[in-house]
């Protein structure tokens, strides 16, 4: 009965309208190289605060799913992934375009992305509730270690060196201490400014880091003359046959499982999932030589993997309050702005909203299916939009969006400074994600760490007696030292 109400809620005219707006905006954002799903969700988040939670989240869920799907469009048509998650779609997608099968490739992208999204939504339904029930057993010590685990996992998979990732993550933790402390309500680093009593606002920081920071980086690195991106959609064959669909099924089932697991790991996003899945499918394939040469299996696997990550990422986000990737980190911030705290309590206090979110995820994929299969011919035109136009549009959306959150000038200046900081991080090859994660997890980590210590009169033994803590701490330490061990092993092998 609850589920029926949740689905009916999504089809309320206002909610459905915002879902469609989200899907269309996401399609535009994802198709254009340089605009990522993270940036899209970050820029549209302030607008969502002016809507009812179910409408705001319908829009954000629409953007998230749609941008990941549509990232594959430019990967297929012009060999440039629209979002990082679509990188593996260039391997076979562009080859199919070169062979004159771009229409087929685009439809494969749509159908398999939607399939990935739907299958991972099922995983979300089956695993989020038991995981949340399990997490209800967590005490302050477990929560503190869980927050640390989330941070270290994101650092370890952030691509850069773990030391750099950790440094940025801990800077985020440090900035999260601004404002009243959670236990004694003591003012910290507020500079006597009442606007800082609640701490630094997370959303303008995030808009600056991922929006303005990215634009500045693109201005700095892009070529003076933009080469026009010529793309056309053609090919007599539009869809796979049922026989082909069946032949591709085992590899896609494997890719879905891999991607849901990868999505659930904090920090490991669609790019990692699709590359792992593509590589694994190639190893399993009877015709590995076709991979990278326009293989239908290769393209379908990379497309299903992108969107299957979302269900995994949403599972840990909703049930544990730990984001699976940068977008879910932003969604956690949005939930908090609506007065909801992600984690097991969300399933008790706001169960109808959790069900609505999952229903929105499923309906968003169905909207993408219809929208994607009917709009193939538009994308070559979208790809002609100049980058300079996008820079101006995104910059304006960032500035006005940051102001719109609280009608606060402090927020705009925070956003602008965060943008410059984001640019410096990009140029210096430091990951930006851990900073946001540090800011998000800071309060959770600090309050639970201090509460846990109060239970044992200040003794740290509590972190080494709980089995959950021991397991999480072991994985955290291993994830941090593993890159160094791997490097040494490689050196020895040479």
């Amino acid at each position, binding site marked *: 009965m609850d589920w029926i109400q949740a689905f009916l809620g999504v089809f309320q005219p206002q909610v459905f309208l915002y879902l469609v707006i989200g899907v269309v905006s996401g399609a535009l954002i994802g198709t254009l190289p340089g605009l990522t799903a993270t940036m899209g969700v970050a820029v549209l988040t302030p*607008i969502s605060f*002016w809507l009812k939670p179910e409408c705001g989240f319908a829009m954000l869920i629409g953007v998230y799913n749609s941008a990941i799907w549509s990232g594959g469009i430019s990967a297929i048509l012009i060999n440039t992934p629209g979002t990082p998650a679509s990188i593996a779609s260039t391997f076979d997608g562009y080859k199919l375009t070169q062979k004159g099968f771009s229409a087929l490739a685009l439809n494969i992208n749509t159908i398999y992305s939607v399939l990935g999204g739907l299958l991972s939504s099922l995983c979300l339904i089956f695993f989020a509730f038991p995981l949340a029930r399990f997490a209800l057993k967590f005490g302050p010590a477990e929560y503190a270690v869980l927050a640390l685990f989330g941070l270290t996992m994101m650092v370890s998979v952030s691509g850069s060196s773990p*030391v*750099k990732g*950790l*440094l940025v993550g*801990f*800077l985020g*933790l*440090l900035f999260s*201490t601004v404002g009243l*402390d959670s*236990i*004694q309500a*003591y003012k*910290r*680093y507020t500079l006597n400014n009442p606007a800082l009593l609640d701490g630094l606002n997370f959303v303008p920081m995030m808009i600056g880091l991922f929006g*303005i920071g990215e*634009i*500045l980086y693109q*201005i*700095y*690195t*892009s070529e*003076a003359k933009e080469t026009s991106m010529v793309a056309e959609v053609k090919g007599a064959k539009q869809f796979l046959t049922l026989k082909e669909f069946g032949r591709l099924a085992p590899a896609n089932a494997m890719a879905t499982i891999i991607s849901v697991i990868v999505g659930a790991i904090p920090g490991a996003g669609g790019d990692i999932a699709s590359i792992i899945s593509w590589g694994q499918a190639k190893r399993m394939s009877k015709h590995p030589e076709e991979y990278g040469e326009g293989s239908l299996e290769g393209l379908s696997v990379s497309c299903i993997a992108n969107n299957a990550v979302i269900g995994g990422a949403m599972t840990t986000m909703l049930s544990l309050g730990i984001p699976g990737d940068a977008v879910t980190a932003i969604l956690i911030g949005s939930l908090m702005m609506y007065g909801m705290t992600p984690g097991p309590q969300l399933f008790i206090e706001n169960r109808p909203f959790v069900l609505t979110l999952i229903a929105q995820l499923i309906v968003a994929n169905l909207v993408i299916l219809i929208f994607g299969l009917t709009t193939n011919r538009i994308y070559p035109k979208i790809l002609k939009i100049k980058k*300079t*136009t996008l*820079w*101006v*549009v995104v*910059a*304006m*959306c960032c*500035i*006005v969006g940051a*102001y*719109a959150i609280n*009608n606060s*000038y402090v927020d*705009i*200046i925070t956003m*602008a400074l965060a*943008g*410059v900081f984001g*640019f*410096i991080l990009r*140029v*210096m*090859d430091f990951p930006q994600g851990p900073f946001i994660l540090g800011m998000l997890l800071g309060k959770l*980590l*600090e309050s639970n*760490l*201090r*509460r846990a*210590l*109060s239970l*044992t*009169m*200040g*003794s740290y033994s509590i972190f080494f007696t709980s089995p959950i803590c021991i397991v999480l701490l072991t994985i955290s330490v291993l994830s941090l030292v593993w890159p160094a061990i791997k490097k040494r092993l490689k050196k020895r092998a040479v």
Partner: protein
Amino acid sequence: MSKAGLLFVSACIAVALLFMIPAFKFPGGTVDGTPGPGYFPILVSSVILFLSAILFVQYLRDNKKYFQQNETQKKNLPKLLITAGAILLYTILFMVIPFIPLTLVFMVFLNWLFGRTWRFNIIFSVIFTGVIYYVFNNLLHVML
């Protein structure tokens, strides 16, 4: 030796100290063992100092030079600095100048900076400023 790297790490050290030193003056913990408000900032700052020290040594040994610009980046540097400056200036003037004239000037300036034709520039700036104003001011009721 990477000078930019050393500069960045030094800035991290300065930030850590800026948070750490006042934290020593925060109230202490309670009798039941709950650490005081200074505990977490000191702990985190200490880790930052430790990580910064590691990176500092790495950068001293490192031959890779960050900010070693290629030709494109050299050419784009003035544009980057002007854009960053324009954004910062816009955010400051946002408090004193009404939204529509300020945004119009800002957009015309950016479009000019990015080499768009005057015709496109004017039409785009007027329409987009109007759309942003309408969406935020009229639909979302943000006081611009």
